[in-house]
């Protein structure tokens, strides 16, 4: 398993990374943890001529907080996120997810930025960011822009990002919903990516659901929030009955993926099962 010939460049700052991106245009790729890109290169499904390594850039690492947001650097690894007390306190579903991503090596290398840029339909982070109502901070030569997770994921391995852009950070709101959040995953038995994953963040006020965000991984080519579930819950009492009703017709109208581990019917069913599990955990 050897990739095609490739040149390697180490960027020491975001500015330098952007400069290199503009220099090599469509003949380069950013490499962060390399745990999605390198396998693709070894299988010769990706053949960048130049790699721009951002993994050592200080500004992209770490997890910090402001009054209203948790800020996760694009190069924070799964393991970094799993160890963060800030995350634990404000968005438990993110911490739960880190134990379910790959194995220890993957968690020590893979980054959240790389994971969402790659946008694998079975990856965990895209779905979590949808449920968390996250904002993705993207930088290019002109400056930075901010994209809602809702608008970022556009399809199979496809996002709202140009080739000369870089994700620098992810903002997670410190919201009541995120504090009451959970991630449940049924792993595909070989890859351990999500055959179905369900992230749910639910704000309950005076016994009623005030705000519900429920998103799925592995179900469709694009991670999505299930507005059917969310609408069915909002304004209701949060209990077994409302959960049962809300999860009776999951992924309605969504085109569901099929493979030899799960055909459409089974996958849709699993999505319902895991939505129910997730919501029941929170109720």
């Amino acid at each position, binding site marked *: *398993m*050897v990739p*095609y*010939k490739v040149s390697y460049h180490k960027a020491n700052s975001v500015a330098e990374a952007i400069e290199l991106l503009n220099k090599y245009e469509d003949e380069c790729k950013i490499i962060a943890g390399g745990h999605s890109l390198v396998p693709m290169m070894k*299988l010769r499904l990706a053949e960048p001529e130049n790699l721009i390594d951002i993994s050592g850039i200080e500004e992209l690492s770490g997890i910090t907080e402001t009054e209203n947001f948790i800020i996760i650097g694009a190069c924070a690894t799964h393991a970094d996120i799993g160890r963060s007390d800030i995350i634990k306190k404000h968005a438990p579903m993110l911490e739960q997810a880190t134990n379910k991503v790959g194995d220890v090596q993957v968690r020590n290398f893979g980054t959240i930025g790389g994971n969402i840029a790659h946008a694998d339909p079975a990856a965990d982070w895209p779905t979590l960011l949808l449920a968390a109502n996250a904002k993705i901070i993207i930088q290019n030569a002109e400056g930075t822009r901010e994209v809602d997770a809702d608008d970022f994921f556009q399809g199979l391995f496809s996002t709202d990002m140009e080739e000369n852009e870089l994700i620098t950070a992810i903002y997670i709101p410190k919201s009541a919903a995120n504090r009451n959040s959970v991630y449940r995953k*049924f792993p595909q*038995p*070989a*890859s351990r990516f999500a055959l179905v994953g369900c992230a749910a963040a639910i704000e309950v006020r005076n016994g009623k659901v005030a705000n519900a965000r429920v998103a799925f991984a592995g179900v469709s080519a694009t991670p999505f929030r299930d507005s059917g579930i969310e609408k069915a819950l909002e304004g209701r009492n949060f209990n077994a009955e409302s959960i049962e009703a809300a999860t009776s017709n999951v992924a309605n109208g969504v085109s569901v993926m099929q493979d*030899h*581990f*799960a*055909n459409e*019917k*089974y996958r849709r*069913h*699993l999505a319902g*099962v895991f939505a129910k599990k997730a919501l029941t955990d929170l109720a």
Partner: protein
Amino acid sequence: MTLIGTSVKRVEDKRFITGKGRYTDDIVLPQMTFAYFVRSPYAHANIKSVDISSASEMDGVVKIYTGKDIAESGINGVPCGWQVDFKNGDTMKEPPHPLLVADKVRHAGDAVAVVIAETYAQAKDAAESVMVDYEVLPAVVNAKAATQEGAPLVHEDAPNNLCFDWELGNPKAEVDAAIEGSHHVTTLDFINQRVIPNAIEPRSAIGHFEGHNDRYTLYTTSQNPHLTRLLMCAFVLGIPEHKVRVVSPDVGGGFGSKIFHYIEEALVTWASKQIGRPIKWTAERSESFVTDAHGRDHVTKAEMGFDKDGKITALRVKTYANLGAYLSTFAPAVPTWLHGTLLQGLYTTPLIHIDLEAVFTHTTAVDAYRGAGRPEATYLLERLLDTAALEMGTDPAELRLKNFIQPFDGVTQEGYQTQVALQYDSGNYHEVLHKALKMVGYEDFRAEQKAARENGKLLGIGFSTYIEACGIAPSAVVGSLGARAGLYESAQVRVQPTGKVSVFTGAHSHGQGHETTFAQVVADKFGIPLEDVEIVHGDSESVAFGMGTYGSRSLAVGGSAIVKSIEKVLEKGAKIAAHKLECSAEDLEYAGGKWTVKGTDKSISFGDISLTAYVPHDYPTGVEPGLDFSSFYDPTNFTYPFGAHIAIVEVDKDTGKVTLKRFIAVDDVGNVINPMIVDGQIHGGVAQGIGQALFEGTIYDESGQLLNASYMDYVMPRADDLPNFEVDRTVTPCPHNPLGVKGAGEAGCIGATPAVVNAVMDALTPYGIHDIEMPVTSQKVWNVINGN
């Protein structure tokens, strides 16, 4: 000092754990080049043309060979090492398997050309530029379908894709009549699915020809380097055997897939002479998936008759065995002599018949995979037993106990003659099952299960009581069954002048821990420290000859050869000692590392005698100097380990997911030299057997593409899929080899699979479901419980 029977830590682990193992791919030779094979993406296609012109121009390319070059060179294809004849006496169809194919590809992964370049990456880059024009043809992948009228032919001279047909057992008419007359007949139609061995180290081979002394060296990932040398020299390349050294260094797992002689080994050896430089080839994982010989793949209908008391009256089996596109080294033996002969199981079944068709398909070759034939036989029997119990409303454990062969030790009582050609050596089948039932707490479990069911939970228990024929085995017997080689083993025990001992064994360790187990035997018999013994294996230049490691034969056959040489050393040592101690050899006894004159305190140590043998100044007349003996051991029978495995599972109704809650294995592998290593072998085998039951299996599409040819899709069992195994054993020594050992390498893999599937079926009894095809995945379970 007794080392035999103690869990000595594995001496080889220091280098493995510290990353210092030396595998074939670790070997770097001066001037070495790299080979990359151009392989067919299609399962069946005519090769219209192969254009190497642009590839030849690419950076670093040294040479490219195509199928045409190989055909013109006059070298042969790789041979098959076992012949099975048709029922009518005709010889099996044995189509050639050339090192590179010239006109037609017969499975996805078939080798069409090879690029040799300065670096591996350059070889791979150029291989992508070799232009092959294929005319794609329809393919057939299922063994039964391949025999039907109109199925695409894999080899033109094998009509109906039949390699051979075969039968074994009692006269068919008698078996038919007994089945017809039975009080109850249980029938199962099933596929024992194809699995991929997946050794962690991919196959690798380095060919090195040295012109100045006209010698070849092949480094290869082989479970039996000597056989590879014999086959390659005598059948493929036609080069003198004494000019070829085959080295099989550390090997990272084989599970059968590295027994066989593969095209890549012969190709790099041959081509090294042509280009005058060493050539290394190492498989990529995706290549391993489609070129390592696969295992199992039977389409079977099995019927078992019972009388009204639940005694088995007869067994009738029809199997289509998939051999793949070419005959791998031992392929014909696996579904026949390693499968049909095991259909007696542990039971007194009076009438047995198997009818088998061995079939070519457009798939990767199928050959021995851990257990080889015996897991298929066990699966068939044990699924029948549990299904029959469900159908007849009897207890599966009771049903077995009722039908077991009575205990026999093979010494004071004769071996048990089966209806299918074997004579079991010794056994106590009731005891293993009783022990396993006790460990599981059977009655408590049934109560727990009942309560769980009332709470809507699906708990199940499954049994498997198996026997295997191991220690492969008596040369005359296997010869009469079609083996084209003997299956003895050799061992040389060389006592060095200082009393240290080097042992050269023809067995080959690729995970089994021979360097420890064999050393324990030697150290114990000589009464010297373990550290004073070295075990050498895997090099045709240092080891006289060997038949390698597979079929759980290393200790039973290879270990016995070592014991023979040890006895010769002690006998000669006694002569020297008698001279030194001025007595007769009969007056001496050997213990604790010294010869002592019986009834006195006069003694002389092993070390002193060793030195005397090499510095023979004061020496008995008529005795040769030196202390170095070789032996060949050819056993008189197979060995027959057996055991009882019990699985407990819980099925999640919502997801269909099967969770293995407990796994109990009571195995009888005869005497045990190193309990820890035996437990390790059982654990690994059980995990592998569970893998087949719940996770593994190839998925071919109709065109012959292997759809799950990567670890993203092919499900291997992992630690978190498995409970802590509860293992124990009984000991029924093998009566016919000097160590009384039977073999432990395959037991786990043979016993585990049906236990797990049986447990799932037991859990699903509320749904009246009696069979789900392996692997029993969540989706399949969910589908059947929802009536989909």
